[in-house]
């Protein structure tokens, strides 16, 4: 695990549960009420210049992972490390600030992520001020103009307010703000899900382009496998708070192993009509308050057997490099390869 070079971002066995009753109990040591286990033992690594996409249906915990990685939430267990430093152990603004600079975020809702009362120039300049990255006022505005051009906006836009822009343009502003502190890692929480399809591609291309140019590490959260295909080097499929499949993007698209991944891939519209038979996902995501026993996917899985209803499948790495948590898949490989 501790190789000679530390991965840029390492996420180890994260757990996060949210209490269901948001009210305040009168007991000081409050009795543990029911919780939603949003993230249940998620681990992965992302290196410089790599893009990892976490994909799953809504409620699978992918956004929570993004918030755990950025530090907006604290994990119940597990840790996040950046360049080999365990950030979860740190506390206080003074200790965390240097890491905050290296890891920034692009948010899902371009209408809520920009303060409506601030000018675009002020919004983009905020990280520059917050991390003391410019010596003078002139430096700040020069940097802001540079960033605006970098994301495809014009320098005159600095004086405008967010409501004067469309969703796609706002997302560009959001990206400019995230880049203002010269981060090494960018977390994008469904950055295109609120946008028109025609604009989605532009934003994705911009992100991909910036990632290549700046050598950024990227964590891309999405519910749409089709969207992430062009952006990602790695893909993690999440279901009900767990990673069920993890591997190289091309491998996963070419040879999806986990039945859930296959079902997700089947939902992508296929213009060429290759005539592959489709098995649409039936049923709904189970209630995360009381997830099913065994494999969490078993109530919807076409391959489910008795073992799936009792035992949680471990992550098994296949020769292709893809890891999958599925009894059926493990069995198939287990017969040819000694387990």
């Amino acid at each position, binding site marked *: 695990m501790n190789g000679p070079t530390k991965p840029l971002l390492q996420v180890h066995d994260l757990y996060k549960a949210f209490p269901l009753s948001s009210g*305040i109990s009168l007991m000081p040591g409050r009795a543990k009420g029911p919780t939603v286990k949003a993230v249940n033992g998620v681990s992965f690594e992302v290196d410089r210049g790599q893009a990892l996409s976490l994909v799953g249906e809504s409620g699978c915990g992918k956004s929570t992972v993004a918030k755990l990685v*950025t*530090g*907006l939430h604290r994990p119940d267990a597990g840790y996040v490390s950046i360049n080999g430093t365990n950030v979860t152990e740190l506390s206080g*603004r003074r200790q*965390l*600030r240097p890491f*905050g600079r290296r*890891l*920034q*975020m692009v*948010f*899902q*809702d371009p209408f*809520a*992520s*920009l*303060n*409506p*009362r601030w000018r675009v120039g002020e919004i983009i300049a*905020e*990280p520059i001020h*917050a*991390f003391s990255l410019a010596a003078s006022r002139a430096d700040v505005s020069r940097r802001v103009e540079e960033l605006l051009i970098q994301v495809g906006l*014009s320098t*005159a*836009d600095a*004086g*405008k307010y967010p409501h004067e822009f469309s969703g796609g343009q706002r997302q560009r502003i*959001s990206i400019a*703000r995230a880049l203002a*502190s010269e981060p090494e890692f960018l977390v994008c929480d469904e950055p295109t899900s609120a946008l028109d399809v025609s604009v989605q591609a532009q934003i994705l291309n911009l992100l991909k382009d910036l990632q290549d140019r700046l050598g950024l590490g990227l964590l891309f959260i999405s519910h749409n496998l089709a969207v992430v295909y062009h952006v990602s080097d790695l893909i993690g499929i999440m279901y009900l708070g767990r990673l069920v499949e993890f591997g190289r993007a091309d491998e996963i698209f070419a040879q999806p192993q986990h039945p859930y991944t296959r079902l997700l891939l089947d939902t992508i519209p296929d213009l060429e009509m290759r005539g592959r038979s489709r098995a649409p996902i039936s049923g709904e995501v189970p209630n995360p308050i009381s997830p099913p026993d065994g494999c969490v996917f078993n109530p919807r899985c076409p391959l489910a057997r008795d073992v799936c209803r009792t035992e949680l499948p471990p992550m098994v790495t296949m020769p292709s490099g893809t890891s999958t948590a599925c009894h059926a898949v493990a069995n198939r490989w287990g017969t040819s390869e000694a387990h």
Partner: protein
Amino acid sequence: MTAEPAVMSDRPGESSRSTPKVRFLESDLFRSFRRSPAAILAFGLAIVFIVLALAAPYITQQNPYDPASYDIMVSNLPPAWMAGGEREFLLGTDDQGRSLLALILYGLRISMFVGVLSIALAMSFGTVFGLVSGFLGGWVDVVMMRIADIQLSFPPILVALLIDGIARAALPAGQRETLGLAVLVFAIAVSKWVLFARTVRSSVMVEKRKEYVDAARLMFRHPAAVMFRHILPNTIGPLMVLATINFAMAILTEATLSFLGAGVPPTTPSLGTLIKIGNDYLFSGVWWITIFPGITLILLVFAFNMLGDWLRDALNPRLQ
């Protein structure tokens, strides 16, 4: 002035950047204002009252605070257009021979001064209270909001009477007159701040969950900076509505307290004290001492209530 926007737009770099004036004229708020006759009327009325109050010494020669400027021999004169009225006293005189017009103008000053000051005090305290309570949440929020609830369970008039009574008992006789106004302002502010605190808190609870606050947190900005620079500007809309409507209510409370004898010292003319003085003479046929200040009070409160109502509708995105 008319040429200015054209000149601005001719400049290449400046073309897309709108000036503050143009931005205001094109704003939804101004457009909604132009379309609402009630808002224009209320706004005009409010401006008239503000000008009258500020320009009182220039409109009338008589100063009700200076006994040398009035004459008890002309007391209880009816308005100028009635038999026995004099042109010098357009709205008649009171029991001490003071011109009612001068009294009303100076009374407006006191009433609006008390209104502005008490609302400013209530708003600043309530805003900070609500901001901290809503932003920190958890136990702090529970304790702070229960304090506010306790405050809210006392009727405003009762709170004001209580504070006035305490001040009267505690202060030496000489200072009562000078501190009377301060006590009044304080009493009204104490009875009003909870409204502001609750409104700000509810706005903060909504705003603090928005992603721009998360973005600020990722920059590890100081919580105070997040509160005051990010969240506070987004709670201004409902605050302005509340301030406008409660300005009218504060003037009404001032009048009520003064009428009850607990507010402005009786020697100081405010709309409330004038109505009180006139009330003693109402049944002897001297109706003008009460009626004219009463009408002024009604119009003043009406104007600011209308303005607040319009502002609430104009700022409500669901009604647009």
